[in-house]
Structure formats: C-alpha cells, structure tokens
C-alpha cells in the first residue's frame, strides 16, 4: 500500500498553505523596497483605513499593513523553524542517550527532563529573553532551550521499545557497539517520530515567538507578526478600532500555525498506523 495515500486532505491543505507562506517569505524581501518599511521615510498618513492605495490600510506610522505582514512572514517562519530544530535536536539527543545508556546518566537525564517537562516553558523563555541581549538568536535560544522535554520523553520511549526487540539483541550478540546499535537501529526508527515532532514544534514555536514579541522581548530591528501586534497594543489599535492593523498579523499566525499542526497530525497518522 502506498503510505502517502494515508495523508489526509487536511494535511494536503496544510502543506499547500506552507508552500505559499514559504514562497512569500522568500520573495517578499526582494520586491519590497526598504523605504516603504522605514518609519522615517514613509509619506502616507497614519491609521488609514483599507483603500485602493493601501489595501490593508496603514499603521501608526503610515506604513502599509499589507507590506508589513508580508515582510513579517520571514522572521516568524525563520524563528519557528530554527527554534523547532534546536528543541527537537536537544530532545532527540537527550532521549536516545537516556534510553540507550542505563544507570546513573540515564537516571539523572530523566530527572532533569521530567523537571523541565513540568515547568511552564513560556515563563522560562520570558526569563531567558529578559536577561539575554535582545535579538533573533536570543528568541531562538529561549524557545529552543525550554521546549525540548516532550520530544525527549517520546524519543526515549521509542528507543527503549526498539532496544527490546530481538534484532537489536542479535546485533549486540554479533559484537555491535553503542555506535552501531544507535546509528543503524535506534536512529532509523526514531526519525519518523522526530519528523512529526519537528513539524508540531514549529507550530508551537511560532506561537511562542509571537508571544515573546508581543511582550516586547523580540528583536527590535525586525518586523514579525508578534512585533506588529506589540505595536498595535502599544499605540492603541484596539480603542481606535483599527481592525485592519489587528486582524492581518493575527490571522497570518493562526493560518500558518494551523497549517503546521495539520501537516504534523497527517504525518503522525502515516507514521503510527491505526490499531
């Protein structure tokens, strides 16, 4: 049976949205001139309602909201992807090590994993990004370093399951070392799980990025969807009923995060067959 046929329609829709979002993020910086996004050089009036010239209106400085949303896609996707890779990378490493090697190391790692699993990741991420200098690297670190434990638990469980199978026992009996067992048997069986986890982690990382940016902890030199909403809150878009400034960045977050979630769930359904 072709495994891809199991990919649900919702998953395909999600994948299509992601392709469009990625194209927008890559092409936008080439088409938008820096002048249009420079607060000191824009000429349009602030708080304009959507019209023929600015079809999503303008923000508090007179910049076009449509251009800002398009430009913000890059930052949000970049942070989401890199933070997810960092988080899943740490989680996979910790999971395999604590699953493969028993004894004191595994015990200690498990203890630390459970500790961080319980702590509210956002609170830790806030504390980290407050003490570190503002910037893209800080946000990626803050999200990646606080969201790995669930991956670690899952990968550890998978490692334990695989290592209990007869073919791993056979490999060991034939003299296969740690490197061989991990590289040839554990890793291949963990990869599908890691893939699913990365996709879902991108979704939560994008939400986390927008939250940190909303709280004013983002990179002040870059436009992101969360940073736009931070500006909207600071300059009173709500009391002014400036829906054109509030809706587009939020909807962009929801659509992209939902797309990653749908793709992740579809992948999950393919990877873990129904009982």
């Amino acid at each position, binding site marked *: 049976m072709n495994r891809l046929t199991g990919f649900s329609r919702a998953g395909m829709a999600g994948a299509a949205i992601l392709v469009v979002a990625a194209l927008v993020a890559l092409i936008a910086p080439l088409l938008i001139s820096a002048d249009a996004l420079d607060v000191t050089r824009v000429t349009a009036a602030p708080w304009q309602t959507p019209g023929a010239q600015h079809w999503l209106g303008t923000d508090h400085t007179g910049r076009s909201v449509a251009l800002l949303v398009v430009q913000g896609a890059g930052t949000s996707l970049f942070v989401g992807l890199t933070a997810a890779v960092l988080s899943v990378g740490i989680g996979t490493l910790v999971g395999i090590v604590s699953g493969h090697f028993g004894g004191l190391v595994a015990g200690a790692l498990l203890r630390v994993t459970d500790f961080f699993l319980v702590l509210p990741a956002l609170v830790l991420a806030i504390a980290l990004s407050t003490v570190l200098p503002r910037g893209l690297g800080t946000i990626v670190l803050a999200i990646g370093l606080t969201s790995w434990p669930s991956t670690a638990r899952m990968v550890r469980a998978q490692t334990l399951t695989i290592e209990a199978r007869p073919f791993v026992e056979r490999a060991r009996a034939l003299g296969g070392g740690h490197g061989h067992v991990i590289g040839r048997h554990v890793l291949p069986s963990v990869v599908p799980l890691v893939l699913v986890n990365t996709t879902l982690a991108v979704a939560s990382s994008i939400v986390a990025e927008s*939250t940190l940016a909303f709280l*004013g902890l983002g990179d002040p030199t870059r436009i992101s969807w969360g940073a736009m909403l931070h500006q909207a809150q600071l300059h009173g878009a709500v009391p002014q009923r400036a829906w054109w400034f509030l809706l587009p960045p939020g909807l962009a977050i929801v659509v992209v995060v939902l797309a990653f979630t749908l793709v992740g769930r579809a992948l999950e359904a393919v990877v873990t067959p129904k009982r």
Partner: protein
Amino acid sequence: MRLAGRLGGAAVSLVMVAVLGFFLFRVVPGDPVVSMTRGRPTTAAMQAELRAQFGLDRPLHEQFWSYFTSLLRGDLGTSFTFRRPVAEVIAERLGPTLLLVGTATVIAVGLGLWLGVRAAWRRDSAFDRATTGVSLTLWAVPTFWLGMLLMMVTGDLFPSRGMRDTDTAPDFVSQALDVGHHLVLPSITLVAVVCAEYVLVMRSSLLEEMHAPYLVTARAKGLRDDLVRRRHAVPNAVLPAITLVFLRFGLVVAGAITTETVFSWPGLGLLFYDALTGPDYFLLQGLLVVTAGAVVVMNLLADLLHGVLDPRVKVV
C-alpha cells in the same frame, strides 16, 4: 513507599527550581546592575546598594548560600521598581490571579471534558469534526490576540481594563458584580485557549477506551448507549484526562501572563510583564521561583489525586 518517593521527588524539584532561579540571573552577560538601571537616573550610592543586594562583590558559593537561606525564610529580596519586598508584592497580586485562573480552569475543564466525550463517542460525526476543527484552530490562536479581538468586538459592553471601577459602591454585592463584570472578557479568553487542549486530551483518552472488551460486555447486558458511556467508558477515560489537566497547569500559567497583560488584570501575570519591562531581576526571579514552585506542587497533587481516584494505582 511510593508516597515517600513522590514527596522526595517533589522536594528535589523544588530545590532545582531554586537553583535554576539563582543561576538564570547570574549568567547575565555584563553587569546586571547596569542593565537594570539603564535609562533611569541613579546615584552611585544606589548602584552600590544594588550590587550589595546581588552580592556581586562576594564569591559565587557565598552568594548562593545567602540566596538559598533567605529563600527558605520566605525572603525573595527587594523589588527595584516597587521598592518593597518581592514576597510582599507577589502576595498582594495572588488573589486576582487565583480568581481569574480558578474561574477559567473550572469552566474550561467542565466544557472541555464534556465536548471531548461527545466528540469521541460519535467519532467522525459532524459534531466531532466541528469540535476537533475548532479546537485545533483555537490551539493555533495566540492568547493575547484573541483577547485584543474580543475587546475590540465587544466595544463598551464589558470593561476591558483592570478588575474594578473606582466609583463602585463599597457594599459587597455591587463590588462583587463589578468584579464579575470585569472578569468576563479575561476569562473567556483564557477558557477558549485552555479548553481547546482539554477537548483534544479528553477525546483521545476516550477513543483509547472505545474498543475495550468491558464495553462490549456492558452493551451485551442490554444497557442503553448513554448508560454505557456514563457508567462504564467515561469513568475509565476521565482519569488520565484529569491527570493531564493538572500536568498542563503550566499552560494556564502561560495563558494568564498574556491575558492579564492585555486586560491589565492586576494579578501575577501583569506583575510578570512589569518585571520584564523594568527589567526588575529580583521581582522576575521571585515570580519564576513562586510560579515554578506552584507548578511542582500541582503535579504532586495530581499524582496523589490519581492514586485516590483510581484504585488500580495505589499510592501507599
């Protein structure tokens, strides 16, 4: 034995929280006093006082020891922005947060479990599809954005800032009504986001039980469909779901921070925002230790509660 192990584990976690709180604010690149006082008029004497409070002039292990012993005494240092003891500032803000988080959690758990059960029981029905779809979408919605939207859509229908008006009559009934009025939008925001998670958790928990042999027996006995659900399937499926609700308490904490920030609800979440905009490291450290400690305690409770509710898991 298991009880002792759980208590010991929680105690170790609490010590780890304290250690984390200490090192997180000591690995700051550069001088924490300089970054805290940036943009504020400060005298050399004030800076020296702050340095002494951080203990920057002493070796690290002495700093840690004095931090740890004062923590055990309930002393979290002095807030730089409020110029009062951190423990005092935090204690003041506890009430409003408990009110908001408590209300939202009760509603979200009730609604989430109910919707989750309905959706799972009629799997792939229109109701199931709609519930799952809405939950997944709400899961993707940033809490703060939902709050801002609600505020804009409802306009003047509900107050959107703070917890009470200054001109409300001082008697209990009008005060309670006023607080309730202010509570509407923040709790809807928090419920919407947290509830989505509970629906999905409850749904998958019940789906796990759907083909269990004991349900076949119950049906074979001739029980009506909703009796099978109420008396047999749900009691078994609700336990893991309830445990997960406690385990995801961190999620509620995170939601409270952004919700309180959007609605200026005078609780711990807004205090978090004040502390990070300062930045006020002592306040932030205190908040981190207190919230993380609370989450550790909640988890211990979940564990113990699970043992009480489910005879198969014996605690003692």
